[in-house]
C-alpha cells in the first residue's frame, strides 16, 4: 500500500523518526486549519518539493491515488450540492454556479471539495515521505518509546518480513492450480470467486504449517528468554532534529495566528 523504505542518505533520511512524525502531524493539522484550497495547494507544492528532492518514485504515489479518483469526484459533487450558501462568509463563495432541480451547486462548496481532496493528497504525500525515509526498526523503536510492548512490535516486523514470502507462495499455488486446468479469476462472478478457493485453501493450510514452524524457530532462537532484549541502534535526536522540531512548532503557531485573522477561510 505505502511506498516501502528505501535506504539512502538524503537529508530527510537522516532525520529522527520523531522529527518526521511531528512534521507529519504539523502539516496535517495546518491543512485542516485552512479551508481555502489556495493555502492547501501551497502545502501540496511544498511537500512535493520535499518529495522531489529525496527522489521518491512518483509511480508509486500514482498507484495509491489512482483508485481514489472516483472518490475525489464524488467528494466534489457532494460538497458542491450539499453546502448551502449560508455556510460561507465571502460573497463570491455564496454564488450558485448552477442548479440541478432544486439543488444549487455553490462555488464555496466546490472549493471546499477541492480542499478536502487536497488534504488527502497532503496526507498521502507526507506519509509517503515518512515511510520512504524511515526503516521499520526506527518505527518499532518509536513504538517502544511510547511503551508499546516488544511482542507487539515483533508481530509487526515479522508480518512485514513475510509479505514477500506469502506473495510468492500464492503465486506458486496459482501456478500449480492453473497447470491442472483451473481458470483462476475467470468466468462469471461466482465462478471466479469460487476459483480462488482453490488458491485460498492451500494458502491457509500452508500458512498454518508455517506458523507452527515459525513458533518452533522462535523458541530455537531464544525468543522470550530474557525480560528485555538488546536494541541494536537507538534512535537519537540530534541538533538538526531539535532545530526542525522547533521550526515545526513555530509553523503551526503561525498558521493558527493567520487563521485567527480570518485569512484562509471560505
Amino acid at each position, binding site marked *: 500500500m505505502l511506498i516501502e523504505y528505501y*535506504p539512502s542518505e538524503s537529508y530527510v533520511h537522516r532525520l529522527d523518526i520523531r522529527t518526521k512524525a511531528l512534521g507529519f502531524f504539523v502539516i496535517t493539522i495546518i491543512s485542516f486549519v485552512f479551508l481555502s484550497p489556495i493555502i492547501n495547494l501551497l502545502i501540496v507544492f511544498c511537500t512535493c518539493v520535499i518529495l522531489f528532492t529525496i527522489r521518491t518514485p512518483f509511480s508509486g504515489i500514482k498507484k495509491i491515488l489512482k483508485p481514489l479518483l472516483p472518490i475525489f469526484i464524488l467528494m466534489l459533487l457532494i460538497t458542491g450540492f450539499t453546502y448551502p450558501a449560508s455556510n460561507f462568509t465571502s460573497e463570491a463563495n455564496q454564488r450558485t454556479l448552477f442548479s440541478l432541480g432544486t439543488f444549487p451547486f455553490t462555488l464555496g462548496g466546490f472549493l471546499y471539495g477541492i480542499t478536502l481532496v487536497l488534504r488527502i493528497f497532503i496526507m498521502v504525500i507526507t506519509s509517503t515521505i515518512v515511510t520512504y525515509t524511515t526503516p*521499520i*526498526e526506527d518505527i518499532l523503536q518509536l513504538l517502544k518509546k511510547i511503551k508499546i510492548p516488544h511482542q507487539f512490535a515483533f508481530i509487526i*516486523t*515479522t508480518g*512485514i*518480513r513475510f509479505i*514477500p*514470502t506469502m506473495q510468492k*507462495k500464492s503465486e*506458486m*499455488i496459482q*501456478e*500449480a*492450480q*492453473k*497447470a*491442472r*486446468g*483451473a*481458470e483462476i479469476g475467470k468466468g462469471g462472478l461466482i465462478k471466479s470467486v469460487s476459483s480462488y*478457493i*482453490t488458491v485460498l*485453501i*492451500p494458502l491457509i*493450510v*500452508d500458512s498454518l*504449517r*508455517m506458523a507452527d*514452524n*515459525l*513458533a*518452533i*524457530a*522462535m*523458541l*530455537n*532462537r*531464544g*525468543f*522470550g*528468554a*530474557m525480560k*528485555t*532484549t*538488546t*536494541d*541494536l541502534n537507538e534512535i537519537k535526536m540530534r541538533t538538526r532534529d531539535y532545530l526542525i522540531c522547533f521550526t515545526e512548532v513555530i509553523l503551526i503557531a503561525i498558521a493558527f495566528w493567520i487563521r485567527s485573522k480570518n485569512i484562509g477561510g471560505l
Partner: protein
Amino acid sequence: MFETLERGSLQVDLLRFKYKNSLTDIFNTLNFKIEKGEFVGLMGRTGAGKTTAMMLLNGLIPHFLEGEFEGNVIANTMNTQRYHIQTMARFIGLVMQDPETQIFGITVERDVAFGPSNLAFGKEKIKEVVSKSLKAVGLEGYEKRITSELSGGEKQRLAIAGVLAMEPEILVLDEPTSELDPVGREEIYKLLSVLKKKGEVTILVSGHDTEEMLEYADRIIVLDNGRKVWEGRPSTLFKDIVLTKKNGIRPPEVSEIGNCFQKQGLLDQDSVFINKNEFLQFAKNNFTSFKISNNGSEKYYSTNNNPVAIETKDLSFYYQQKNSVLNELNIKIYKGEFVALIGKNGAGKTTFSKQLNGLLRPTNGAVFINGNDISQLTTAQLSKEVGYIFQNPDHQIFSATVYDEVEYGLKRMNLTETERSVRINTALEFVGLEKFTNRHPFTLGKGERQKLAFATVLAMEPKILIIDEPTTGQDWDGTNKMMEMLDKLHRQGHTILMITHNMLLAAEYTDRVIVFSNGKVMLDDPPEKVFYESEILKAASITAPDCVTIAGELRSAGYKNYPVTINELQNDLLEQLARKENVNRVLPFGKLRS
C-alpha cells in the same frame, strides 16, 4: 545412570514418548550418546523419527510439543525437563529443515542479531557475533541485504548463521541440504566440517547425503520406526549393502561393484569399496589391459523418427531487459523421449519448463506443442496435453478427499461421471493410493501427498509430462518408487521432461540430457555423451557420476566404453574377468595394500 557428562555432549535415555493426540508411541526406548566435538550423522528413511529425535534435544519435546514423556534427555549437562527451551537454545542450536520459516529479520544483519538480542547480549558483543557467524557461513558482505531476496542456498546458510550467533556448544541440523543443488550441498558440509575442526561445537546432522556423510561424519546413527537400529562408523555402514537398503539409505555408487564381486567370490570379505578413489586404485592395479569389445560409442542415439512433441524456436525470456533468463533456445523434443534437464539452481531449467505449458510466456520466439503454436492457448487449455508436476504437493491439495482432489481437474474436461471415475481409479492405482480414496489428503504422509499430486495430473491423461525435481527431500525408497513410476510411463510412450539435481537418476533413466547454464543450453545429448564432456560440465558446476570418472581413469588401460551407471561398468569388468587374461592377481582379490 548419569555418568559425569561433559559440556557439549548429548545423552538421550528415553523410555518412551507419545504425542498428546496420537495413538502410537513415536519412540519406545531410544538411547544414544554424543561426545563433545563429534560430528554425528543421523540417517534413516523419511518418517523414521529423525526430526522428532532432534526436537528432544533442546526440550521442544516435551515443552512445546506435548505428550507422554518418560526418560531423560541431557544436553550440555542440562536435563531438558528442568529448563525452558529458550534457555537450552543458548547452548543447543537447532536449525530446522525449512529456512524460510527461520528467518525473522528484514535484513540479513538484523536476522542474525535476532537470537543474541533475545538473549540480551551487549550491543558490542552482538556486533561481534553477527560478523563472526556471517563469516563462518560465508555470507560476509551480505549484512544489509534484504532476506527475502536471497537464494535458497543463501537462506539456508543464513539460518545456520542465526543459530551460530547464539554461540551454541552443540549444533543440531535437520536435513540442511534437502532443498539445495549439489554445489550448495557440498558447501554446507564443508562449512560444518570447518566448524568441527575449530573444535568449538559438537555437530549432529540428519540427511540422505550418502557421499557427504561418508566423507565428513565421525559416526552415524541409523533410526527406523522410532528406534536406533544401528550406530557406528560411516565406512562400516556403507559397506553393508543389506543394512543400508533395509533402512532406506542409498549406498555409495561404487559399493555395488564391490558387493557384486564379493558375491561371486572374486573379492575377500570386508574389502568392499565405498570410496571412489579406493576403487579406482583397485581397478588400476588389477585391470591393466582391457580386451573387451567397445560397445559404447555406437550406442549414441540415432535421431528419432518419432514426431516432434515439443519445439522451441529462438525462445528468449527475461524479467528485466538487461539479464535474460533464457537466451534464444532452439530445442526439439521428440515424442516418447525421457529427457533430463540439469544445471545448477538459477540456470533456467524451471523457467524453460514453465514456458511449455504457458505459465510463463516467451519474451521473444515461440513454443510449439505437437506442432501447434501455444501462444493463444491458456495454461488450463494446455493442461490436457502438458501435465506439470510441481515439487511441493501442498501447493495444490485443497479437497476433502483423495478422490475429489483427483476429480477436480477432470471436471473441466466434459467427461461423464463413469469416465471420470474410471480415470480417477486408474490414476490412483498407478501411484498406489487406491486404498486411500476416501481419506482426507492431509492425513497422508508427505510421500503419499506427492503421489496424490502426481495422480491428479495423470488422471488428465496428458501425453507430455514435466516433473520438477520429483525426488527432492525424498529418501532412497521414495526416490526409487518415483523413478519406477516415471520409467513405466516412459515405456507407455509418454514424453517426459524431468528437472533434477540427481545425476545418477539422469544417467540411469533418461534417453537424453540437456545441460543448462545461464539460460543457455550447454549440452544436449544422450547421457553416454553428456557425462563425458568433463570440461563443459565443470563450467556448469555439474559433477558426473563416479563411474564416469572411473571409466576416464581406465582409458590408459585400454578401456573404451562409456558407462553412465555403475552396473554398466560392473558388467564390463566382469566380462573382462571372464576372459581371465591380463588380470594381475590370482582370484579372489585380496584387500588393497594401503
